[in-house]
């Protein structure tokens, strides 16, 4: 197991964490989406590599979904939406970039410490995949928390979901992985882009979630 195959898997999963970090400091929507497309490409490579070393052919389907859907279709669609809405200005981050990066480092440390400690007996590849996956999930959450814009929250959610796919493919022989990735893709495609963004724009002429905040039903 150790040797080249392990190193490549490690490299790809680590690369995914790195791209997650890149997402944290993007302050323009287009740049954020491009980084997300890169995230999806790295994920696709990582999943394909897992499919190869585990000899699990159904994982190629997951890799293909990641490549076609998340790296091409969704980013192109989001570009269109942003252009049509005319919001390719800066995205205001709720927290500054410095603290966000520090928080990101803290989260990655946390997940490494946690996952490596609780899985001493697991297969080393799956173990590292899980640790990386948890880092990506937490970084995705961080993106969602620090952004106020609906599009960037969706991007954060999608990167979080990439982490889940990584974890699921790393767990050897896990059933339903393909089904879960298909379900997630459908969820993203239909719900987020189709329904919400369209209607949020229709009603508010803005995809800034802050604009939604003015009604709380209680306070005013």
């Amino acid at each position, binding site marked *: 197991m150790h040797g080249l195959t392990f190193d490549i898997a490690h490299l790809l999963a680590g690369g995914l964490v790195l791209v997650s970090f890149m997402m944290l400091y993007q302050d323009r929507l287009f740049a954020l989406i491009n980084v997300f497309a890169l995230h999806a490409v790295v994920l696709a490579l990582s999943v394909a590599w897992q499919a190869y070393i585990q000899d699990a052919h159904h994982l190629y389907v997951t890799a293909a979904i990641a490549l076609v859907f998340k790296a091409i279709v969704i980013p192109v669609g989001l570009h269109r939406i942003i252009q049509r809405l005319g919001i390719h200005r800066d995205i205001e981050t709720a927290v500054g970039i410095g603290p966000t990066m520090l928080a990101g480092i803290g989260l990655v440390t946390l997940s490494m410490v946690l996952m490596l400690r609780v899985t001493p007996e697991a297969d080393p590849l*799956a173990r590292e995949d899980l640790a990386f996956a948890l880092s990506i999930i937490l970084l995705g959450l961080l993106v969602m928390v620090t952004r106020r814009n609906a599009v960037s929250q969706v991007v954060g959610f999608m990167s979080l979901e990439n982490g889940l796919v990584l974890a699921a493919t790393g767990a050897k022989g*896990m059933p339903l992985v393909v089904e879960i990735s298909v379900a997630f893709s459908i969820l993203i495609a239909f719900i987020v882009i189709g329904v919400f963004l369209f209607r949020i724009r229709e009603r508010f002429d803005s995809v800034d979630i802050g604009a*939604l905040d003015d009604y709380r039903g209680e306070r005013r």
Partner: protein
Amino acid sequence: MTAFSFDAVAAILLIPVGAAALLAAFPNYRVTARLNVAASFLTLLAALSLLVTDRPQPGQYLLVDDLNIVFIVLNTFVGFTTSVFSASYIAHELETGRLTVSNLRFYHAMFQIMMFGMNLAFVSNNIGLMWVAVELATLTTVLMVGLYRTHEALEAAWKYFILGSVGIALALFGTILVYMAAQPVVGEGTNAMVWTVLIVHAARFDPALLNVAFVFLLLGYGTKVGLAPLHAWLPDAHAEGPTPISAVLSGLLLNVALYAVLRFKLLLAASPDAIAPGPLMITMGLTSLIFAAFMLYRRRDIKRLFAYSSIEHMGIIVFAFGMGGPLANFAGLLHMVMHSLTKSAIFFAVGHISQVKGTQKIADISGLTETHPGLGWALVMGVVAIAGLPPLGIFMSEFLVVSSTFARQPLLAIPLVFGLLLAFGALLLRLTGVAFGEPRGSTAPAEASYVPMYSHLALVFAAGIYLPPPLVTWFQHVARILG
């Protein structure tokens, strides 16, 4: 005999799916509203038949056992009464133009798909399938919460969607960790996700991994249960969606997530070296109870008020299951059933009330027992029940929770009783104004369907006075399973 009973499981899944397809196809809303009721009734009958027939052998995907059958029967029953309420509710919404006929096709189809998702979550024997089913049920409710397309409804749906997705993502990570823990023992493949296989081998799973998995599952599914501090979606989603959806959210969907938490709690309990899940659940339960009890005082929207009351009661239920032991589990189970029945009855009443009065603001609703005695007294009964006054069913279950806590952990009983009294005060305070004050607002007669709410209240009332012995033995048996 077995063949028939297998059909019953298939029926509670296939009837909603078939009905959803039909309902999406028919344009006439009068027909579809009735069809919705009929389909829900058939599903209820199928669920009831599970009680009397032999159960099928658990397969790789589906399972019927003593635990989930309680949830299934409750789910299909409230689903059926809600569909009856919904028929009269939407007729009014169409008249006032808040909904259009095409909205309704979507709404009815989604209602049945949601029922399918919830039933599937209950009968699934596979933790992956259960996750998919919970996700499906959540998504359909997100769509229905946003149905009115108003500013507030969209905000509520968006918040629900984002928080729900995060919760569901954490739950999936927990599910993957459980698989990782099971895989060295059970072997690769589907078997390592099958519930009945997992529980047999749980003692040999890696306890550390199982601990981490449970934390993720508790946080993930706990978001769905509406446990503080992950509850932020719940009041908005209840207040802004159509009221039948508020009723099923409170009465049913919270139970689905709770059921998932309970299943994994059992798994953890079967592993001797893993942490005890109890203290975590007790902490989250108590936090939710006390937080929600304080929040009840500041509510100005009637549906939001009862949404916070749902958080409070889910807190009590999670607390009771966290305490564990036959008595506390029995109390938790009973409380869950009583809460589902009472809260959905309250939402039925509130739905008609806000339609008649044209507002959900508590300040604008007053003197209901004079202007609309049918609705007003239903609300009074419901609130008296939910506040935990004798002789209704919730009094009994709360009493059991409190007394079992006193017997085992007297210190924990103090915050519990404090929270209960706090919530009690808030609810009665609001009730007096709404039900007995100077009549205000429209006095037009209501075209309400009284049967669903009064049948629920009658059941709660009956349970408070007399629990039939077969029911008690059944619940005691389930409580013992829950450990």
